[in-house]
């Protein structure tokens, strides 16, 4: 909590300061003037006004939410069958599959995103392969598109979807499915009536684990994404490190946090309820 609260307090403080072209790049909120013997507090709400007035921020926020939401849905659609297959496979192959899911974490995240540039670029591996096979005769524009961002995010965050889903699905009591079959439900019906509702905690956990970091993602969109449409994470890092406008950057960070607070709180409420239900 300390590791969250203290940095949060600092950022929160900075978000109300004036920017000064100095080191550090913001004016103090409270200043002691020796001559007048006064403590002067200067609050600056302009940083937040900027967020509301400049349409750049609103559009990047919305774009980030859209990208994160679609990526989450894609991760769920891809991850659910994978998690299901792993959970239902024999124990020995199960461990192998889990290893394969975790294996990418052994290399740097940045390196893996750079590797996608090599795959997606105009004379990259994918285009060259398709060209040499004669499937296309013009290289496809893959890099620096929404598509590339989705590929990057889905690829990077898929394990965070699969692992909570797997740990949920693996605990299911399979006699429940036998009971459903016994009562006349075909396998597909039994899946939607029994397995899916019971796996909801895993679905919720997986979706939040993908959605929350995806909203603030800046490495993937800045390396693979469009240049005309930024994501909020990119803007944030540009403000901090590029423009060195720490107060506005802090305001962006606080706004982002408030935006994500809602799903986080919902998740915690949900977990609490699940915990209570399982305890009884």
């Amino acid at each position, binding site marked *: 909590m300390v590791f969250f609260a203290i940095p949060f307090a600092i950022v929160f403080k900075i978000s109300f300061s004036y920017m000064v072209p100095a080191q550090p790049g913001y004016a103090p909120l409270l200043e002691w003037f020796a001559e007048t013997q006064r403590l002067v507090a200067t609050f600056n709400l302009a940083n937040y006004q900027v967020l509301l007035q400049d349409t750049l921020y609103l559009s990047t926020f919305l774009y980030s939410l859209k990208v994160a939401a679609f990526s989450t849905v894609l991760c769920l659609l891809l991850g659910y069958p994978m998690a299901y297959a792993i959970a239902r496979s024999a124990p020995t192959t199960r461990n192998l599959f889990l290893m394969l899911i975790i294996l990418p974490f052994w290399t740097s995240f940045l390196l893996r995103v750079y590797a996608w540039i090599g795959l997606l670029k105009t004379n990259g591996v994918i285009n060259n392969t398709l060209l040499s096979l004669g499937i296309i005769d013009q290289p496809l524009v893959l890099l620096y598109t929404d598509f590339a961002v989705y590929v990057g995010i889905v690829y990077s965050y898929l394990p965070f979807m699969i692992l909570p889903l797997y740990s949920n699905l693996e605990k299911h*009591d399979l*006699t*429940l499915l*036998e*009971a*459903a*079959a*016994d*009562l*006349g*439900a*075909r396998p597909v*019906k039994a899946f939607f*009536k*029994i397995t899916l*509702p*019971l796996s909801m905690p895993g679905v919720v956990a997986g979706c939040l684990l993908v959605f929350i970091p995806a909203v603030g993602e800046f490495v993937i969109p800045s390396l693979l994404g469009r240049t005309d449409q930024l994501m909020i994470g990119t803007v944030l890092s540009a403000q901090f490190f590029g423009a060195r406008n720490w107060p506005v950057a802090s305001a962006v960070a606080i706004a982002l946090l408030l935006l994500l607070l809602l799903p986080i709180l919902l998740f915690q409420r949900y977990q609490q309820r699940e915990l209570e*239900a399982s305890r*009884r």
Partner: protein
Amino acid sequence: MAERVVDRQNQYLRIEGVTKRFGDFVAVDNVSLSIFKGEIFCLLGGSGCGKTTLLRMLAGFESPTSGRILIDGQDMAGIPPYERPVNMMFQSYALFPHMTVAANVAFGLEQEGVARPEIERRVSEMLDIVKLGEFAKRKPHQLSGGQRQRVALARALVKKPKLLLLDEPLGALDKKLREHTQFELINLQEQLGVTFVVVTHDQEEAMTLASRIGVMNKGQIVQVGTPTEIYEFPNSRFVADFIGSVNMFEGRLIEDEPGHVRIRCDDLDSTVFVSHGISAAPDAKVFVAIRPEKIEMNRGATAEGENCVGGVVREIAYMGDLSVYLVRLDGGRMVRVTIPNIERHEERIVWEERVVLRWQPSSPVVLTQ
């Protein structure tokens, strides 16, 4: 209370030479069995005897390696569980944890496509029968073990199956509740007239529930009969030993007449006279089985005559309604005797007293296998 109507002419369930192999292991070995309409049939056996595998084949979760299963004349081969006119009550109950009691019971009817009002009517009717009407809105985790058991029963019965399969139906209940539930189950079965096939390892459960019992051992049915037949006239050492407790003596036939036999046992000082004939080769090795409650015990020094032996009391276990005595015969064998505690202030036989044990000529069972 309704009278159970067992139609002995109607072989409702026919199992014909069914075998089930898992790799090299033969779980069910060439079992043939007929179960009549309206009866409670118990498959009784120890763990791993194949009784659960047989039940799962009836439900359709396993398919026989060879043989046929016919329910009401219809061959079940290739018919998946969700199309069989059979419902099962699982040992773990397998209630759907995310559904209310009413939704659990309604599930089967919904799959059949029964109309909503009809479902609601039948569910509430069924919940009233199992006395759970007021719990309809609860989730399974808010119920006690006994209540869950009744939900499982209601869920399986609401579809009016031709056959209800029950896997250790009382296994998860405590002793007091078991006894109560046993009688409820029998009442319910008589009321609804559904044919029950019960799997259990608990011989007491089988004895009270069943109209007939099939005793299983190593994948085979070793004896089929009413509870009385199984207990009083076991056909093998396995059955005699598995159902209740029994004193077993090895011996040789010394006299074999149609109306009686005499057997010489090395462990007993006297010969055993049995007042019914048996079918065995002369001089064959046989086993004499005598139930502990069929032995009469009196104080006394010497034993004279047939069916009478002397010994010393070594252990007494007071069970309340009866006492179990372990008596060491003069030949060294321990014999188990149970005596009902009829009077409270009776001078009971105590440790190390010399006693004489006696039994009626009709009491022993002579077994050849």
